């Protein structure tokens, strides 16, 4: 983290209730360029709610977020607008269209066209190779086969690559390795380290505290809907973190 730079994302006192349940209460955090910020907390603590607000899926009842110093008004608080502002979310299990190719998945929602209607396959394949090389993902079989034939790690790498391929500066990873085996997890962690080098700001949600310690620069603890504590990775032990997660 670069403490003298300005935050690229600020979350200011956002609250969200579902019926009677206050899922999030005055949540706040700052995210700086080039850092990996981990959000940790028990099940039901409110992590996903916080992420969904940042992504624009949910509108906060109170509070707001700012991106690059620009306050996002209630009217603008939508997935489309926030995406345009450079935020990309990679969901743990929804990130991929399994029957389509890796290039298609990388270009999801922005397929390059020739003559207005045809798919520019060459451009897609070239860009895919470029992104995979940049993320140091090797041995991708065929870019013409369905992505479901690739390993889970490669699939998730494509999903993360989708974020950085379009110059997104804020990437949110919601449990990116929850469904992966050890080797594939390693591959995805390498990718996360690669995107850090590009000065991308990453928010990582993970239940795996070892992983959090391996990857994160900073940690925010969510406890019963509140962003209760914040640590630099170097200044906290696993035990202290577990205590913060369980007791706030």
């Amino acid at each position, binding site marked *: 983290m670069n403490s003298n730079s300005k935050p690229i994302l600020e979350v200011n006192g956002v609250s969200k209730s579902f019926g009677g349940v206050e899922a999030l209460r005055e949540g706040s955090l700052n995210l700086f360029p080039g850092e990996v910020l981990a959000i940790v907390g028990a099940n039901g603590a409110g992590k996903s709610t916080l992420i969904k607000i940042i992504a624009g899926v949910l509108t906060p009842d109170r509070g707001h977020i700012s991106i690059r110093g620009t306050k996002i008004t209630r009217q603008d608080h939508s997935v489309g607008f926030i995406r345009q502002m450079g935020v990309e979310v990679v969901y743990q299990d929804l*990130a991929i269209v399994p029957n389509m190719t890796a290039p298609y998945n990388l270009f*999801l929602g922005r397929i390059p066209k020739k003559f207005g209607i045809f798919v520019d396959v060459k451009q897609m394949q070239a860009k895919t190779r470029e992104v995979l090389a940049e993320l140091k993902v090797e041995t991708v079989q065929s870019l013409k086969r369905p992505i479901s034939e690739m*390993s889970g790690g490669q699939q998730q790498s494509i999903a993360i690559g989708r974020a950085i391929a379009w110059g997104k500066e804020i990437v949110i990873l919601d449990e990116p390795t929850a469904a992966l085996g050890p080797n594939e997890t390693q591959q995805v962690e390498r990718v996360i380290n690669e995107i850090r080098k590009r000065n991308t700001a990453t928010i990582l949600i993970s239940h795996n505290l070892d992983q959090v310690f391996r990857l994160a620069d900073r940690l925010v603890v969510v406890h019963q809907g509140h962003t209760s504590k914040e640590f630099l990775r170097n200044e906290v032990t696993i035990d202290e973190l577990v205590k913060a997660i369980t007791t706030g």
Partner: protein
Amino acid sequence: MNGNGPQKHILGTKDKPKSMMNQLSLPSWDSPEGRVWISRIRDNVPFIAITLVILLFWFISGDRFMSVRNWTFIAQQTPVLLLLAFAQLLVVTTGSIDISVGSNLGFSAYMAALGMLWFGELGFLVGIFSAVFIGVLNGTIFSLFKISSFVTTLAMLIIVRAVLVIVSDGRSIYVSDQPMSNSNITSIEAKWLLDLGQFPQILYFTVIVAVLLWVVYEKTVFGQQLKALGGNEKVLRLTGISVNWFKIQVFAAAGFMVGLASFINLARSGAATVQAGEMLELDAIAAVALGGTVLTGGYGSVLKTVVGALTLTIVANGLTIAGVPPSWSRIARGLLLITAIAISLNRKQIDVVK
């Protein structure tokens, strides 16, 4: 019915069950080479099926089946079914289904005939517009009101046929190649239309449509989106694609294909009748399925759909030539359908069957 099945397999979970599968299935089948072989056979079921069917009827009926005359007949019989199957293919690729195509065909053919009666030759366009309109209606009800495509198009099947009965009052409109003097019969004079219904024009027309559809299906953004929608609708929504609008477009495109089918049916049969297209929706679905397209969406092939429609026509034709009574012929076609699907399904990818 949109692609809930495969999602669970997306991220690496397949690594765990693999060891279990090894214990359960025959080692030779589950070896990498074995799996490649099985998937190769699966991919080519439609071609294998049509070859076997042709050989079988050739063997049974000899030259009566394998004659230029009979194949000309088959070439004339297939186009209407094929165009309807194309309509179905577009919808099925997205994981939905359109069972209103038969009723839509009857209605649009009648509207085309009416249009020609009112406006002259170009009036046939009224039929195409009607078909697209019904497609748009299907797509709108299905996507905006979130009523399953099966139910939506089932309702449309019933309603559109009833509207046809009302509009036509049960009377047919005939196409003739010369002016008709009999005032009891409603007819339009259009020799060109009847000619279009004959071999080889009908074949040229169908081949051109098939090639254009192949280009749309394989090479365009629209075609790719069809398969993606069948693969994972939720991801498409998250990426900001307007899925509802796209679904309306898909049903409109299917409607357009039905419009072409109704036009060719009018040309071929020389009449717009109240019964036109009845039960044809089932043959259209069967042709798509025989073409190896999984009805759960995400995959499909224009070429294999051609093969599927041809197979269905050939089997009906071959059984007739062999002297099999119609009911037995239907039973045979039903069994063929189940067999073809049973072979082409990859059961390991299926969690739940509904």
